[in-house]
């Protein structure tokens, strides 16, 4: 679709507000051979229950319907795996449904759960996601992931998804990065940052203390993307409980308002037709008048440089929550850094920076917990969890993990959930001697983005402390 009707641009309305009550995660790993998936799911559920001082059995009594995110049946070789998990959680005979939207599965699972509460169908729901990517060798895993591209037109081309991103990286680098080596270094800084933050996260399985040079010298996967530009392939689970206001306050004193929206775009990048840029609240129609002049080749939108699905998810979500400017209204974000290039592309789709200027979010130091140029808090820290580059990409769980991470900052409980020596020990991981508390002080609002394919599905989940709601003017 390259033009919209007014009805299609309607801002979603909920019949009642939806709250995030709690969330929990398992350990994440490249392989966790000692545990079945259900054990990981129960680990995540138990953490969510204990986070609000409940036993799993007590929490289960509140749940009315269940939403399960699990993307790749191939990996686990189990169709209807959602049913297996539902049974093992002892939530039968409640209604449940499986959700699959590639890399956005976690976010889409929250989207479905959100709508169930917003509509009044359920007062309290479980949104649980997981992935089991360790039961085939990596090259077969890469083939399975490439099967999420078009099997007739794209998958046979190398059977490697990174390649489908690398063509975007090349185009973006040449058009908006003006082929500068400094742009390639900016991409590398994202890998250094996120893998560094992962060192403070006991759940993470890709922590690294590395330099820009290490990233630029890492093996080429699909030029210009190198190994350290690419996300992890993971095993693990994450789950959240959503509820209406009355139920939420029965479960906890500190629920957070939650808004989730979704956008999509063609599975094949090849099919993306030229169109006008849909504008976010912080953008004016004049902003992109001379985009092609400033960045020759950059006026084909979304082309190979933008993700329309992310733009649409933000278009709806910002107006649902009253967000006018993500830089001013959010205190932190968790973005879908599947590749360093897609992280930069997302800054623009989400209005953190105008199209063409994404690199400045990194170069200014705004995306860091502590701005490396000023030593002061970053204006809008991103991916303090370590993201997909450093923490995990257990596909069905990813968007849920990122939502929980944002929530723990707003709850002011990030250090408790990441610094506890017992958790490091239980996961068999060594807590770094220089472990640092990454709590964003005074966090009130945040954004988590969940993203599929080369931008086929994107969800935007906004969390807001109830005492710090924004005026909804749309």
């Amino acid at each position, binding site marked *: 679709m390259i033009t919209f009707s007014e009805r299609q641009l309607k801002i979603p309305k909920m019949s009642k507000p939806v709250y995030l009550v709690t969330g929990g995660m398992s350990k994440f790993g490249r392989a966790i051979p000692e545990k079945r998936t259900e054990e990981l799911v129960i680990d995540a559920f138990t953490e969510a229950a204990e986070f609000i001082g409940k036993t799993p059995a007590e929490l289960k009594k509140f749940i009315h319907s269940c939403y399960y995110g699990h993307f790749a049946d191939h990996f686990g070789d189990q169709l209807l795996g959602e049913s297996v998990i539902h049974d093992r959680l002892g939530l039968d005979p409640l209604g449940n449904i499986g959700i699959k939207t590639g890399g956005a599965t976690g976010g889409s699972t929250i989207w479905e759960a959100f709508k169930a509460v917003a509509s009044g169908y359920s007062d309290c729901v479980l949104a649980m996601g997981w992935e089991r990517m360790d039961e085939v060798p990596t090259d*077969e895993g*890469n083939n399975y992931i490439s099967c999420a591209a078009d099997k*007739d037109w*794209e998958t046979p081309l190398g059977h490697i998804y990174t390649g489908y991103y690398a063509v975007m990286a090349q185009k973006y680098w040449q058009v908006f990065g003006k082929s500068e080596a400094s742009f390639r270094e900016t991409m590398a800084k994202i890998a250094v940052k996120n893998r560094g933050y992962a060192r403070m996260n006991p759940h993470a399985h890709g922590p690294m203390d590395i330099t820009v040079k290490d990233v630029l010298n890492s093996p080429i996967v699909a*030029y210009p993307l190198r190994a350290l530009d690419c996300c992890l392939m993971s095993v693990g689970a994450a789950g959240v409980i959503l509820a209406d206001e009355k139920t939420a306050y029965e479960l906890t004193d500190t629920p957070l308002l939650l808004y989730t929206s979704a956008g999509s775009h063609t599975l094949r990048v090849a*099919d993306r*037709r030229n169109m006008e840029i849909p504008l976010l609240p912080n953008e004016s129609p004049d902003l992109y008048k001379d985009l092609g002049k400033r960045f020759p080749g950059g006026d084909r939108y979304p082309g*190979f440089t933008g993700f329309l699905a992310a733009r649409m998810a933000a278009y709806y979500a910002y107006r649902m929550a009253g967000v006018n400017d993500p830089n001013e209204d959010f205190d932190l974000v968790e973005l879908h850094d599947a590749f360093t290039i897609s992280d930069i592309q997302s800054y623009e789709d989400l209005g953190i920076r105008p199209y063409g200027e994404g690199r400045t979010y990194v170069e200014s130091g705004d995306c860091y917990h502590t701005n490396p140029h000023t030593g002061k808090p970053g204006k809008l820290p991103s991916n303090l969890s370590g993201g997909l580059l450093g923490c995990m990409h257990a596909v069905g769980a990813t968007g849920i993990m990122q939502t929980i991470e944002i929530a723990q900052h707003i709850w002011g409980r990030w250090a408790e959930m990441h610094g506890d020596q017992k958790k490091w020990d239980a996961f068999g991981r060594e807590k770094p001697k220089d472990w640092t508390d990454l709590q964003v002080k005074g966090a009130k609002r945040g954004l988590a983005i969940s993203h599929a394919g080369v931008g086929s599905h994107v969800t935007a989940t906004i969390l807001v402390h109830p005492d710090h709601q924004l005026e909804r003017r749309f």
Partner: protein
Amino acid sequence: MADLKDRGTVKVVNGQYKFKGNFHYIYPNSPIRGEAGELMGVTNPRDLTHVHMYGGEAPFFESLSKGKLLGTRCDNPKCEHTGMVHVPFKIHCPDCLKRNTIVDITEKAKKSAIVHTFMVTERTGAFNTLKKPIRFINIEFEGVSTILMSYLPVGEPKIGMQVLPIFQTKNPTFTILDLAWVPVGTDKSELPEGFTFS
């Protein structure tokens, strides 16, 4: 264990699949043990053949083996985007959903195809059959609204370079791999085995 030579083939007769040969082979599984010899799991070997039908896209894949590149065009005068040409081939117009008209864009491709973007990879997933390094290219055509993904088996890609289509007309696979591109000026002696300019 079954003989792999009997691997299955399919024909469609009177609207029904006619299967011949073996579509799956059975192998024994084996235990997965830990360092202390304890049982932790089992392997699940299998070898199976899926059937996949091209439906309305079949003319596209057939045409590649004959040295032709087909696209489709919306000719519905009431469509918001009538006249729009799609490559990849789309059976129906994504706007009005009327069935598109098949158009031969081989000559248009020969005159106007340029590289929109590209990448080079030495790594592939399992089941890759392309020679490495693989050079993906995405191709713009004059008058075409979309940007096709394909590969460049000869030469080094560059954004904006003009390329020519080549086709696997000898021993075709009847897949998208039967289409590739080479830089303008490439001699036919440089083409990969089985490929021709037309």
